[in-house]
Structures are given as C-alpha cells and as structure tokens.
C-alpha cells in the first residue's frame, strides 16, 4: 500500500475507532490479569477485493504484563461463535484479518495473554463490513500503464489508416525470410518451422503461429514444402488452420498437406530427439525457430548448423538468445520477434502499431530518466523533498 493510501486510511479509521470506543465505554477492567487494550478498531481496506479488515489497537497502561495477543472474529449472524484469527507476540499492535465474508459484518476481539498465559478481558470492535469494492485500488497504476500503451498503439494505427506514411527500419532477419524460402525452393529441400515447445496459452507461441502464417504464404507462392513438427496438440491445430488459410490465400490450396504439420510429443527432449533426427535425414535448407524455447534451442541450432541450413530464430526467452546468436544466421531479439508478424505483413495498421510501440518506449524511457533524476537528487539531498517525491513517483508506477 503506497504511503499516500495509508495516510487517508488513518483519518477514516480514526472516526470509526472513536465511535466503537464510545459504544464500549462501560467495559469494566479486571486488574488482576494483563491489562486489555484501551482502544481497538477494525477498518475495511478501501478499494480492495473485500474480505479483509485491518485491526489495530493501543495499550495506554504499562504493557510489561502482556506476553502475547489473541485475535478472534465473529460473524454478525446468530449462532456464530468466536473464531481465532491468529496469536501474535506482545509487541504487535496491528493484524490483517482475511477471508471474511463480504455480506456480513464482523466483530473483532483483541485479548491479551498474561504471564502464565491466562487470558484477560477482551475488547471488541463495532461490527465492520469488509465489503468488496467496485475496483481494486492497488491496480490503478497498472490500469493507467495499459491505458498509455494502448493509446499509443491505437493512435498510430489510426494515423496509419489515415494514410500517413509509416517508416520502419530494416530488420535483417525478416528480410532474409524471402531468400531463405527461395534457397529452399532452388535446392528442392524442405523448410522446417518450429513454433516453440510451449502451448497456445503462451503469447510467444501465438506470435510464432502468426509468423508461421506469413512464412507459409511465401512458401506456398514459391511452391516449397514446409514442415511444422509441434510439441503440443493445440499448437498442431492452430498451425494447420494458419497454414491451410495461407495456402488458400496464395491460391495453392491443392498443395497443402496437413500431415506435414504433425504432433510429435509433449516431452521437450523427445520432441528434440525427433527433430534432430529428421534434420540430419531430410537436410532442410531453411530452419525457422519462432516461439518459446528452452534448453533445446542449442541442440536445434547446432544440428541445423551442421547440415548447413539457413537458420532464422526469434524468441522472447532471454536465456536462449545467446545460443541462437551464437549458432543461427539471424536472430530476432525479444521485441523484434513480436514485431515480426507486423513487419512481414506490410499492412499499414500493423506497421502503425510498431510505431505505437516506439512511442510507448519513448514514454518508458522518459519515465526512467525522471526516476533516475529524482533518485539522484534524493541521494544527494536526503532530507529535502526529493525522497518523498521519489517514493510518490514510484507509487504512481505501482510499486
């Protein structure tokens, strides 16, 4: 909870606390055991998913006799009995009670343990409802972040649709796609496309399938055969849909062969054993590795290198980029891989979205510069206003 939130919380908390104290004025205090708390309050956390109350209490008298605290809660429905929330060490003054129902108020009782562990008289709070709010406050910075990125992307898509020319820098790896497919056609050898080893619930695999759509279209136009062994059944399905549609749009639906796009196994290294064997026997002329790869990236690219194929790789797994960079002819690094589908499509909308990504990058860079300046000033003048400003700025960005 950022500093700003808890400040506001205290003010409201104070109001509820004073009301509950007044209601319980008459509680008699038995001096023999450890003194009960003098003031206790339960506050519903604002703007949260509900079910959470922050309980805090104060002991005005001499706290030495207290060895611990017992926190209990009771739902405001008849027949409900006290349920222990937690037991805390003597120094504790605050606890968060979770998993409370949204529709009934709860009463919280704080009781102190004496030396020999016997309980003193507890002090209860007024019934407080831990209701679920409409929107989760803590996620506001995230919501704003997504809004900013989306606006950048949408603005540039619209400007591209309005006809303004979009210039995107050359990405060598993607320009090499055409001559890689061409080389495979000349040599009469197949193209191998691997869309990573993760399932369709991974965005890299989805991006890999979109790139497959373009590569398959080029392959259909050149009349080259494209093989797509997959490591998940769903990926096989998605790949077949994409390749079939690409062959359709290239007017070559007759030469589309679904058996070339086949499920091998879910096991990472069983899949790689099959693909390495196939590479060495079929000797594909061009290999594409587009998607989420783990340790097997180097096995594929080294085997591909040993048979002299052109290899173009693209992944968002930063751990595997060193191996692709070392063993492949071209590598798309992180964001370049996600830009591949739009770059290859040459459609104005998609090129516009790339420019939108750049705009969002500029904003991120600006935010970093501001943050760094604030941090430097805060470090140089620790007692000035900058540390608070830095913490505030970090709070705005959600951490």
């Amino acid at each position, binding site marked *: 909870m950022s500093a700003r939130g808890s400040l506001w919380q205290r003010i409201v908390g104070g109001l509820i606390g004073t009301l509950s104290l007044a209601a319980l004025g008459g509680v008699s205090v038995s001096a023999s055991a450890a003194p009960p708390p003098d003031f206790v309050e339960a506050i519903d956390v604002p703007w949260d998913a509900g079910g959470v109350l922050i309980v805090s209490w104060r002991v005005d008298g001499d706290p030495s006799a207290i060895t611990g605290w017992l926190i209990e809660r009771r739902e405001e429905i008849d027949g409900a009995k006290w349920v222990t929330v937690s037991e805390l060490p003597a120094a504790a003054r605050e606890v968060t009670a979770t998993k409370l129902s949204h529709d009934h108020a709860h009463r919280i009782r704080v009781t102190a343990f004496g030396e020999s562990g016997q309980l003193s008289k507890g002090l209860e709070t007024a019934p407080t409802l831990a209701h679920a709010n409409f929107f989760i406050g803590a996620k506001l910075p995230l919501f704003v972040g997504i809004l900013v990125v989306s606006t950048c992307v949408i603005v540039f898509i619209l400007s591209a649709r309005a006809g303004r020319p979009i210039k995107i820098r050359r990405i060598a790896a993607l320009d090499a796609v055409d001559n890689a497919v061409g080389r495979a056609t000349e040599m009469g050898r197949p193209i191998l496309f691997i869309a990573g080893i993760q399932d369709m619930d991974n965005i890299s695999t989805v991006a890999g399938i979109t790139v497959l759509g373009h590569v398959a279209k080029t392959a259909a136009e050149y009349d080259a055969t494209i093989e797509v062994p997959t490591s998940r059944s769903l990926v096989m399905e998605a790949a077949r849909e994409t390749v079939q549609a690409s062959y359709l749009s290239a007017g070559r639906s007759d030469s589309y062969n679904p058996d070339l796009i086949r499920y091998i196994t879910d096991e990472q290294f069983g899949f790689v054993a099959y693909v390495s064997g196939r590479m060495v026997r079929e000797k594909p002329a061009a290999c594409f590795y587009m998607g989420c790869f783990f*340790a097997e990236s180097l096995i594929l690219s080294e085997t591909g290198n040993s048979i002299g194929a052109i290899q173009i790789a693209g992944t968002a797994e930063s751990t*595997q980029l060193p191996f692709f960079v070392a063993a492949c002819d071209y590598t798309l690094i992180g964001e370049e891989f996600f830009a591949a589908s739009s770059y290859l499509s040459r459609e104005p909308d998609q090129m516009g979205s790339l420019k939108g990504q750049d705009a969002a990058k500029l904003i991120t860079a600006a935010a970093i510069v501001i943050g760094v300046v604030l941090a430097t000033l805060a470090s140089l003048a620790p007692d000035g206003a900058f540390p608070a400003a830095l913490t505030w700025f970090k709070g705005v960005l959600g951490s």
Partner: protein
Amino acid sequence: MDGYGGIQVSGFVRFLESLDRRWIYLAMAIAVAGPIIYIGLTGKTLPETATPAAQAVFDAIEELPSGGHVLFSFDFDPASGGELIPMATSIVRQCAARGHKMVFIALWPLGAQLVDETIKRVITADYPHMKEGVDYINFGYQAGNEAVMKVMLTDFAKAFPNSSNGTPTTQIPVVHGVTRASDFPLLVTISAGYPGAKEWIQYVVSSSGGRIKMVTGCTGVQTPQLYPYYPTQLTGMLGAIKGAAEYESIVNDAICKAHPGTTTPAKYLEAQRRMGPQLGAHLLMVVLIILGNIAFFAQKRAAAGAKS
C-alpha cells in the same frame, strides 16, 4: 606452397580450420569422463569458496527461528536433476538440522516424485525423528502454473486440497494455522524454467509486501535472468552446480562443527564431486575459444597476405 596465394600456412592452423566438430565432442567427453573416474576412484574433491549469494541462502535458513514454516516448491524435472538435486538435498538437510517445519509442493508434474526421493534420501535416512504430517508434508503436483500461485496467495488449502497421498489439508497438523502463502516466512524454490523462480517473484513475493523471504536454487541458464532480482526481491540464490557446491560445503562445515568428529556422508558431497568435471570442461572451453581465434587470425592474415 599451397593454400592462400603462396603464403605458407602452418599445418596446425590448417588442421584447426578443417577441424571436424566431432573431435571437439571427443575432447569434451574426455574432459568430463577423466575427472569423474579420477575422483570416483580416489574420492578427492576440490575446495569451494562461498560467494555472497550462496552464503545468503544459508543465513536466511539459519536466521529463521527453529520450527519456522518453510515452503518448498520443486519446479524441475529429473532432466535437470544433475544441478538441482544436490541443492534440494542440502537445503532440506539444513532445514531438518534447524528443526524447521517443511511443506513441499511441485508445479512441475515430475517434481512430486523428486520431493519423495529427497525426503527418503535426507529426512527418512538421517532425521527419522521427524514425522510426516507433523514436521513435513508433501502436497505433490498441482497443474495450472501461475494460476496455482495466485490461488495460494489468498487460500493455500484451495490450491492444495489434499496431500500427495490423499490426506485432506485440514487434517494435516504441520499446516495448521497456515491459510495463505504469506503465512510461510521463507519460500525455497528449486527451479529449472517455467513456471519457476521468476513467476514466484512476480506473483507471490512481490505481492506479499515483503512478508515472504524467498531463496532459490536454479539452473545455470536461469542465473543471469534472476540476478536483477537479487538481493532486493530474492534474498539468496544458488546458481548452477557451483552454487550447489558452495552451499553444500557451507552446510557440511556447519553440521560438522555442530557435531565434531562426524564425517559427511557421500550423498552430501555430490555437488562438490561434480565440480571436478566442471574444471576439465571449462578449461577445454577456454582452450577452444583461444584455438578458434588463432585459426581465425591466421586465416585473416593469410588472406590479407594474399591480397597485398
């Protein structure tokens, strides 16, 4: 006079250029097999100097008051057991020596079996007084990757309704009073990829507001990716077999100091034994990089000679 336009290229360089990659494979096989057989026969291992990241893992477990709850997540499979099993063995050993309550889960299907093997190798063998269900429990594998983590944030019992052998979570004493992930002061993830340490940091540690301290043992390939999180979100980190060997030597020294006169059983020297072939292989890699560049420069000089 052959080769590059009249310049005599030494036989050695020509051998390097046309070197068939299979000679490199053979060299690597010897660089690894040699030390294994030597150490296997003589039993001598190389000393280890501890880096701060490995020491931080030891300290995090040592500082936790005895009997504290430790949540273990085995997110790997036997394929990367070579690096990670020695880590799991030594961390469980330190926790057992400290008398911590250990709760095991696995987000990789094959992790559940690895938990059982580790329990059999460490707890049942050397700490028989610890009872299943009272001092430790294995909740086995739960499908769903990050979704399981998100559920654990609010309700541990919902994510793991029953232990791996079928006992409902409500009837297991060791997790009595544990309602959510943040009730575990220390989280130990042994991770080989996805889902793993990164997801634990993203979904559990960062949203627990610092209430959960996390240490991780990870494969060499993941170490660079996790360094940005150390030491802020990640208290301690064991990187690859070297981290395992460093941590293993710290734990073995501590336990030998606590019980003078006892020798460390062989199963707790596995990582340090494996450091032998590491030295052989790493030296070979360094030599290969040097040879590769010798061949490259000789070729470049020869080509330059031919041009002038």
